């Protein structure tokens, strides 16, 4: 049971949503946008989160968009992970979404919720970070479309009152060779100790990571070291790991040493897989 009250709004348009946010914010209700609600409900129950109003974005057609249009794949923020997996417009994206949480949670958990939530993994963003995707954000000042590399730095960079509407991915990235390695401690239904998602584009690796450090990231410096093909794979991996933008974390699931070892192994596997070399 959630031990406090809040108001519930389900707008039909983007404008209605942003105006409602502005209005509720002026009334000091600390509104939050609501997608699947899986994290908001559990955190509210534990009183880790408090709000006076939630704005459910699931009735907004742009947030439920799920189609190919003009050479772009469009994924609305209110799509459930199951919808993304089952329609499978972008197999690499589906593969990364498939082990997040469990099946019945994925029937409720939305793309927007996974990316914008407080949990630090945000795994659904990984494949979107390594292709030239663009994020559509809406707020009281209007709608803007931002390249993912500018819109996401360990978290989605939203201005006050903004929400994530959809993400657009160029259709041609579907044919890029990809690699994904996710490792958990006990069972597959668990948070990742490491999760690497990579594509090879124009002979170069583009990689994003979750679970390794406190927050997910993509790093140009790490990619520069991995792409120095004149060096042996082990040296490329070792140099890349030394340049991670955040320290390798330790927690109840794994020590930093174990994470580092898994990371080395997985990155070597990635090179072997995408460059077609044997380990």
């Amino acid at each position, binding site marked *: *049971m*959630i031990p*406090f*009250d*809040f*108001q*519930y*709004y*389900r*707008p*039909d348009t983007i404008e*209605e949503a942003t105006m*409602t946010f502005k209005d509720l914010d002026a009334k000091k209700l600390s509104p939050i946008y609501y997608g*699947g*609600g*899986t994290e908001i*409900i*559990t955190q*509210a*129950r534990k009183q880790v989160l408090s709000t006076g109003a*939630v704005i*459910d974005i*699931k*009735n907004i057609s742009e947030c439920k968009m799920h189609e190919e249009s003009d050479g772009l794949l469009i994924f609305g923020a209110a799509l459930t992970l*199951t919808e993304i997996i089952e329609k499978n417009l972008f197999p690499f994206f589906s593969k990364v979404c498939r082990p997040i*949480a*469990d*099946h*019945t*949670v994925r*029937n*409720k958990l939305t793309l927007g919720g996974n990316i914008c939530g407080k949990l630090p993994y945000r795994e659904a963003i990984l494949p979107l970070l390594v292709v030239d995707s663009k994020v559509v954000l809406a707020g009281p000042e209007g709608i803007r479309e931002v390249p993912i590399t500018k819109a996401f730095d360990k978290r989605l960079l939203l201005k006050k009152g903004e929400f994530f509407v959809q993400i657009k991915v160029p259709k041609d990235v579907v044919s890029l060779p990809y690699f994904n390695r996710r490792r958990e401690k006990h*069972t*597959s*239904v668990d948070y990742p100790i490491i999760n690497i998602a990579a594509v090879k584009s124009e002979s170069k690796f583009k990689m994003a990571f979750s679970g390794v450090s406190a927050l997910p990231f993509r790093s140009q410096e790490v990619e520069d070291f991995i792409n120095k093909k004149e060096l042996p794979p082990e040296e490329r991996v070792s140099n890349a790991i030394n340049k991670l933008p955040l320290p390798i974390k330790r927690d109840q699931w794994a020590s930093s040493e174990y994470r580092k070892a898994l990371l080395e192994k997985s990155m070597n596997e990635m090179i072997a897989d995408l460059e077609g070399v044997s380990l």
Partner: protein
Amino acid sequence: MIEYKEFAQIELNVNGEKRKLIVRPADTLLRVLREKLGLTGGKPGCENGDCGACTVLVNGKPIKSCIALAVEVTGQEITTIEGLSNTEIQDAFIEEGGFQCGYCTPGFLVNAYALLNEHPDADEELSKEWLQSNLCRCTGYEGIEKSIKSAQEKIKNR
């Protein structure tokens, strides 16, 4: 735009019946089903989206009702364990010993029902992927797996 401020009168479509009730917008579907409608089949376990004892169907898809708001599912078809009486999956759990204490059983039944409805030919891998959403601390899962296979056969032989 739909808005519910304090106590809200809503209508839920549960097991084919339209039910009018008054809820707080912050009430979870699980609590409303149990405490306002007396449908106590779905169980509060972790209330954290982990154990699956509260699983219900919304438009045929299994979800954990502890991580849904009642106001969120107005206008949608909700099916609880009470709506699955006289189904093959229920008989199979009894015949194959798919439960011991029974607390998790409603969640398993609802999820397995949805699985076999959507994928009548589900293989072991798919069954495991779906049923990983539910936890049982008595059976070791063997009886549950046998029950699902048995129900699958019963459905094919209808």
